[in-house]
């Protein structure tokens, strides 16, 4: 028998039949014809509709609630108080009362009839002003802090460090630990919490808290000896996830203690525990189902307060199905946003461009808790640095993981500061990065990261025409419209989450697979089928894949670019195991040993004598009456994949210096992500990352009203996404072949989303000759940067 690795290892380029192919996604026809059913589209018999009474104040105490009039309204089936009298509300739009009625209109009418009185409390929504009078000690971690770090997917070592350094302000209850385990929080974090000293929470009136402070090398000497020092301020605001399908669910009770929830989620297998906790029923009694999800981007890992209260109001309505999907306003207000980050930066260099020192004072808000600190200096590991980050605690609503948590912010600030240094040195930033390319190598540098970046930079430069096109600042055209180029480097980890795959091969030749995963539109279904089909020698149409149900073998949530690495490795292992069993059954008939067989092109045949073969159907017929049924989990660590990818973004923009309008001419991304299973869907993800990056650079901002603490633009008119006319030409180049393929599949959900903001912001700076410090780069900010004397409010901090 072949050893473990060679038995499961990915087929070589010559052997692959489906892996790596440019296949159209299998659920495409359902999606383009409107047949694909999303949670929002599910219509259960006798379904009721919910509407929610929301707190209009950003910080308040609930004083009284009167639901009596609402309960008597026509069509109302149940009224449920979500946050009762005495509760302190931390952001505007928070959920207070839910009403279920026969239709949406009746539910809305009844919600309007609920009377709630509040005591308004002082609030704070300003994350833009540079913090002053920051208290010395950060104080012990609160549960809000911890939840903030979990939901923004801060790396566990960083969380452990914070717990150890600061202690905690709460008792660690067994229930909390259960909940953390159900949410796949690492045992090291749990151990750190159990060992942490419990301290009195600090009574601080300050909205500022020191989040992280660190020093490496000797920054003082580096700046003292530096030949050139460049300074700048940079930053990006809070933005929202703005999923097209809002958050929400349909809950019903199949009996007194069994709940069934259709829910829009990135985490089909991971919700049972959360529902169980909220509804006080065993996790085994929770059934979760979802066929398609209309976007998540990191905001849909939880059952959420609304998932729980939808089930609670269903129970009050006799268990009838109740649908509550968030309206666009709460969706944008409270169902997910990315922390802001602003920074004052100094960079030290030698005249030849060698980077020697970094200093940054940064701040940003993740809402009521800290969201962790952006990694800086990003990718380019400048040897001497001093940095500190202040968390600004605000009443803007909680943050959630937004693709590549904290990376886009760290990348924007670092790459902007480096570009400004290049300008100060009169150097081409491409040359400056290449000069410092060794600094991009991580400590182990197992995959020659610096060499890969170099290769990617040169390919990207070629694709965008960098060398012929780049001009120093101030030399980008004599007319009003200036053209500029910018670049950024990006990175992410990846690897795979836990995943289990069940494969059944029936004696009639039909094949069924079950996995409790989800397809966010990344092509997960298609990729699983390509791996299974390649392994079994079958076209993908011959395999019936079922996903999206927590009654199937579990897979992890789709976050951190871990899905492709998880589901493809469990699929590969399960289908190899199933194939092996089939080979064992038919080897005799083919007068060969099982190891001598292969599954190719719908046949099982002898490798050395391909004419000795059975069709798939004939082979399966030899199973007798019992099917082959294999359930296989992937490994941790999984030798079939790896972690750590990189990419280069280059942008070409035109900026009208009279109107301040930025026009995208072209964006290029060159990206590596190990073995690519489906080139078509992989490229789509990278195109998408560019477009999202264009939107977050030029348009997106969660604007808070300083007078009433509410979001000013909770709609899609004024929370602007990029349209088809805003994006310019897009070019994607994926690195493949030797050096990449043998690393196995690594996810793409985060990596390409990191760099576009920085590359575009740098291109704008190159075009107009000055830094537009804060995103989004709206016309007023361009003009303010060009005319600082005019006193534009966004020219500097």
């Amino acid at each position, binding site marked *: 028998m072949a050893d473990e690795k060679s038995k499961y290892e990915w087929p070589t380029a010559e052997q692959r039949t489906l892996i790596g192919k440019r296949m159209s996604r299998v659920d495409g026809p359902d999606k383009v*014809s409107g047949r694909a059913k999303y949670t929002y589209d599910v219509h259960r018999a006798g379904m009721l509709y919910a509407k929610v009474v929301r707190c209009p104040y950003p910080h308040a105490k609930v004083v009284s609630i009167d639901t009596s009039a609402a309960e008597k309204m026509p069509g109302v089936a149940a009224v449920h108080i979500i946050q009762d009298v005495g509760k302190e509300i931390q952001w505007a739009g928070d959920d207070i009362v839910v009403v279920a009625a026969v239709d949406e209109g009746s539910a809305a009418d009844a919600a309007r009839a609920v009377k709630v009185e509040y005591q308004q409390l002082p609030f704070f929504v300003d994350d833009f002003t540079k913090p002053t009078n920051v208290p010395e000690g950060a104080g012990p971690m609160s549960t809000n802090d911890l939840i903030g770090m979990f939901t923004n997917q801060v790396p566990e070592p960083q969380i452990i460090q914070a717990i150890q350094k600061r202690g905690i302000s709460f008792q660690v209850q067994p229930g909390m630990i259960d909940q953390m385990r159900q949410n796949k929080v690492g045992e090291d974090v749990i151990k750190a919490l159990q060992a942490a000293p419990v301290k009195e929470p600090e009574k601080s009136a300050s909205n500022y808290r020191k989040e992280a402070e660190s020093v490496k090398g000797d920054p003082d000497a580096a700046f003292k000896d530096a030949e050139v020092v460049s300074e700048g301020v940079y930053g990006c605001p809070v933005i929202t996830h703005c999923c097209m399908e809002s958050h929400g669910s349909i809950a019903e009770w199949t009996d007194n203690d069994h709940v069934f929830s259709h829910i829009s989620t990135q985490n089909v297998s991971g919700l049972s525990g959360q529902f169980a906790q909220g509804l006080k029923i065993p996790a085994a009694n929770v059934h979760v189902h979802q066929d398609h999800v209309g*976007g998540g981007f990191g905001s849909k890992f939880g059952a959420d307060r609304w998932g729980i209260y939808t089930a609670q109001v269903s129970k009050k309505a006799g268990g009838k199905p109740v649908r509550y999907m968030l309206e666009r306003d709460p969706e944008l207000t409270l169902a997910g946003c990315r922390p802001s980050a602003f920074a004052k930066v100094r960079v030290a260099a030698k005249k030849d461009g060698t980077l020697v020192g970094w200093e940054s004072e940064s701040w940003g808000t993740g809402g009521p808790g800290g969201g962790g600190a952006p990694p800086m200096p990003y990718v380019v590991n400048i040897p001497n640095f001093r940095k500190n980050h202040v968390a600004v605690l605000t009443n803007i609503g909680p943050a959630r993981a937004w693709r590549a948590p904290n990376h886009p912010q760290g990348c924007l600030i670092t790459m902007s500061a480096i570009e400004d240094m290049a300008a100060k040195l009169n150097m081409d930033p491409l040359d400056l990065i290449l000069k410092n390319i060794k600094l991009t190598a991580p400590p182990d540098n197992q995959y020659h990261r610096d060499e890969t970046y170099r290769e990617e930079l040169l390919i990207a430069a070629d694709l965008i025409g960098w060398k012929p096109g780049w001009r120093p600042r101030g030399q980008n055209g004599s007319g009003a419209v200036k053209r500029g180029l910018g670049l950024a480097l990006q990175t992410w980890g990846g690897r795979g989450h836990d995943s289990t795959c069940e494969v059944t091969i029936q004696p009639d030749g039909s094949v069924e697979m079950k996995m409790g995963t989800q397809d966010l539109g*990344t092509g997960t279904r298609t990729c699983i089928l390509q791996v299974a089909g390649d392994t079994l020698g079958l076209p993908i149409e011959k395999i019936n894949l079922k996903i999206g149900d927590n009654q199937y073998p579990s897979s992890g949530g789709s976050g951190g670019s871990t899905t492709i690495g998880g589901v493809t490795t469990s699929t590969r292992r399960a289908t190899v195991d199933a194939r092996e069993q089939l080979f064992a059954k038919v080897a005799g008939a083919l007068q060969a040993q099982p190891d001598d067989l292969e599954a190719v092109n719908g046949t099982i045949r002898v490798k050395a004598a391909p004419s000795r073969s059975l069709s798939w159907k004939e082979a399966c017929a030899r199973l007798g009456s019992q099917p082959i049924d294999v359930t296989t989990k992937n490994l941790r660590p999984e030798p079939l994949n790896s972690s750590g990818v990189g990419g280069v973004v280059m942008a070409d923009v035109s900026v009208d210096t009279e109107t301040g309008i930025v026009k995208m001419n072209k964006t290029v991304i060159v990206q590596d992500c190990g073995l690519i299973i489906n080139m078509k869907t992989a490229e789509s993800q990278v195109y998408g990352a560019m477009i999202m990056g264009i939107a977050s650079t030029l348009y997106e901002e969660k604007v808070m009203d300083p007078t009433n603490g509410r979001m000013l633009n909770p709609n899609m008119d004024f929370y602007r996404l990029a349209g088809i006319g805003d994006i310019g030409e897009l070019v994607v180049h994926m690195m493949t072949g030797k050096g990449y393929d043998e690393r196995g599949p690594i996810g793409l959900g985060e990596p390409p989303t990191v760099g576009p903001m920085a590359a575009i912001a740098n291109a704008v700076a190159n075009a107009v000759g000055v830094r537009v410090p804060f995103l989004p780069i709206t016309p007023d900010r361009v003009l303010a940067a060009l005319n600082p004397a005019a006193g534009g409010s966004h020219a500097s901090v």
Partner: protein
Amino acid sequence: MDDLPEKKKPNKPRKAQSSSGVSRRDFLKISGVTAAVPLVAQASALVLEEAEVAVQGPGKVPVALNVNGKKLNAQLEPRVTLLDALRDQFELTGAKRVCDRGTCGACTVLLDGKAVYSCSVLAIDAQGREITTVEGLGEPGRLHPVQQAFVDNDAQQCGFCTPGFVVATKAFLDQHPNPTPEQIKHGLGGNFCRCGTYAGIRAAVMQVAKKGA
């Protein structure tokens, strides 16, 4: 402005028709000019611009819609939008509710062949019109060329904006069978996608334009 889509807000409604209903525009006029007239069930008809029109609601009224060539009937409150009627009454859930205020285009359907935001049309106003939803264009195994082009060019990721985009593209190509890139920018500027599928959509439009839909 460059980016204004050349479609979308529904046509001026036709004159109010006999008993089938009062158009929204006329309804607004009524409520504007006859503030003294209580608009409740007891007022069953009003005289408007010399024509007698029926007052609808506020309770449920019979609504008959012609959707994808089929006659569909329901009892609906007059405040129900065409989008909600399609989705909640007739299980035609291809058109999606996203922004719910005429911005994002995910609810796009054809009204007499013209693309409209169905979240901004009342169901009672859509009576007597020919309504085509994404389901009416084609189905798996028998896709419309525009739908096939969206599949071929991976012009979709999560797919939630896709049905609206498919319908908008169909209407756009009916008007501009051989569009320039500039026309695509404007003509499809009334739909938003969050995953970022515009590269595929542009390629899909060009594929159909070359072949002819």
